[in-house]
């Protein structure tokens, strides 16, 4: 009896593992097919620009407002700690480095996943459920090339720009609180920031992170949409999966990338 129960448990575990690996392989093949069939999206770039508008421009408000608040909170919390060590003039450095290296790409990625990623999944899933993709295929138009690829590239291009704007908005928020409200010296705030933030180690590493997150989130979003069962329930589950999976992917990838970029302060 016990052996049979154990066996059933093991079988279930094995089933979950193999189906997860199978799905990952399927998603990878989908990505390869998508990239190989991106000719239309790049040649008729207007299609991709429309998606940059939907994924990027329409996410601006949430990105800028969130960035502002994150920067303001960083400034408040950072000042409290820094002033204990008499280093409150380094506030600009703390705010800028936290945003550019970590919070900008990660928080912008999480917001992008829930704002744009979920919309992409729902849209593609509903197009599938209402036979729009099948109709396109019957008109001899490849839906991956015409519908999926422009959304993918639109997301990949938008994400680094959104992360940069998030950081910029956050630094402005930090300035508002640190300099205007608390009274840290403006000259010290900006000049220390300028001296301490490094182009390749800080800015570029942040950009690399945001590009990686952009690819991951948009890939998950278009795949979940395209693979969604063509029913109301299927699309709603796929949308949830997009947000959950891409959020976890961002946090896990952030750890891996940070570990790879870590220099131990020896630069």
């Amino acid at each position, binding site marked *: 009896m016990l052996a049979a129960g154990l066996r059933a448990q093991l079988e279930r575990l094995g089933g979950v593992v193999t189906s997860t690996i199978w799905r990952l392989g399927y998603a990878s093949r989908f990505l390869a097919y998508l990239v190989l069939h991106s000719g239309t999206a790049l040649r008729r770039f207007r299609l991709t620009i429309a998606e940059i508008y939907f994924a990027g421009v329409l996410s601006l408000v949430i990105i800028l407002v969130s960035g502002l608040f994150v920067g303001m909170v960083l400034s408040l919390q950072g000042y409290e700690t820094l002033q204990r060590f008499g280093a409150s003039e380094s506030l600009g450095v703390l705010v800028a480095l936290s945003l550019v290296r970590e919070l900008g790409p990660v928080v912008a990625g999480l917001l992008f996943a829930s704002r744009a990623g979920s919309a992409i999944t729902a849209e593609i899933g*509903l*197009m599938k459920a*209402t*036979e*729009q993709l*099948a*109709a*396109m*295929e*019957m*008109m*001899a*138009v*490849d839906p991956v090339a*015409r519908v999926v690829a422009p959304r993918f590239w639109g997301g990949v291009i938008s994400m680094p720009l959104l992360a940069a704007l998030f950081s910029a908005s956050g630094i402005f928020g930090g300035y508002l609180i640190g300099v205007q409200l608390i009274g840290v010296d403006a000259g010290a705030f900006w000049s220390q920031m300028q001296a301490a933030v490094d182009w390749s180690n800080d800015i570029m590493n942040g950009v690399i992170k945001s590009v990686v997150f952009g690819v991951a989130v948009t890939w998950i979003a278009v795949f979940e949409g395209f693979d969604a069962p063509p029913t109301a329930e299927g699309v709603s589950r796929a949308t949830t999966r997009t947000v959950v999976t891409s959020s976890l992917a961002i946090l896990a990838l952030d750890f891996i990338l940070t570990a790879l970029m870590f220099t131990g302060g020896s630069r």
Partner: protein
Amino acid sequence: MPQDSIVEIRNVSFAYDAAQPVLRDINMAIPRGSVVGIMGQSGCGKTTLLRIIMGALRPSAGSAQVLGADTAKLDTAALYAQRRRMGMLFQFGALFTDLSVYENVAFPLREHTTLPEDLIRDLVMLKLNAVGLRGAAALMPTALSGGMARRVALARSVALDPQLILYDEPFTGLDPISFGVITRLIRQLNDSLGATSLIVTHDVQEALGVVDYVYFMAAGRVIAQGTPAEIRASAEPFVNQFVNGKRDGPVPFHYPAPGYAADLAVGTA
């Protein structure tokens, strides 16, 4: 079989799972210029047959010759080239919800031709006029009624002047006026374009008024065929039940179940 058939189905069988074949040994010939109906109950295999004709599925046995080519032997590029000569109307129209009526009809023209914009405009207006919706060109699909959406989709599916037009349940959910409009349009477009039409439907009474010839399917087989008059007069019990909408017949009213008394637990208390 006649030489000038647009579609020829020879001994086609199909099964997702070998134990439960969906189609068994189907033979059909659809002559050029005709409007042919494939009718039967939901689940009788008619949609599967349509997918085989579209080239979306390959038959397990037999062959489907469509527009002179064996669909199972075409690669993706050849299949796409073939589909440019075919139009398809989906059950609920399947209009692109992010494009206006005008852009929906222009879609196949933009994707497959390099025509200048003013010529595309003329062609779109011509097609929309044919379905009576030239005035709705600027509307979005969400602003259309079910019947109007179906007409726009019909204009879109004939945008490239196809030789073969496929209809998947074109009458479902239409009010009587829209239904009358759609049936007339199916016939008009077929004759004016010199096309051939294939209608897959379970709306028998409606479809019998428009088709030239009917194939009746049940459980994956063709059980009857003939002109609408022959089908109406058919003595075949299933066809008779279906055409006349009888409650009971070869297709029972009750889903198989154990005895009624047993389910109500009569005599056990």
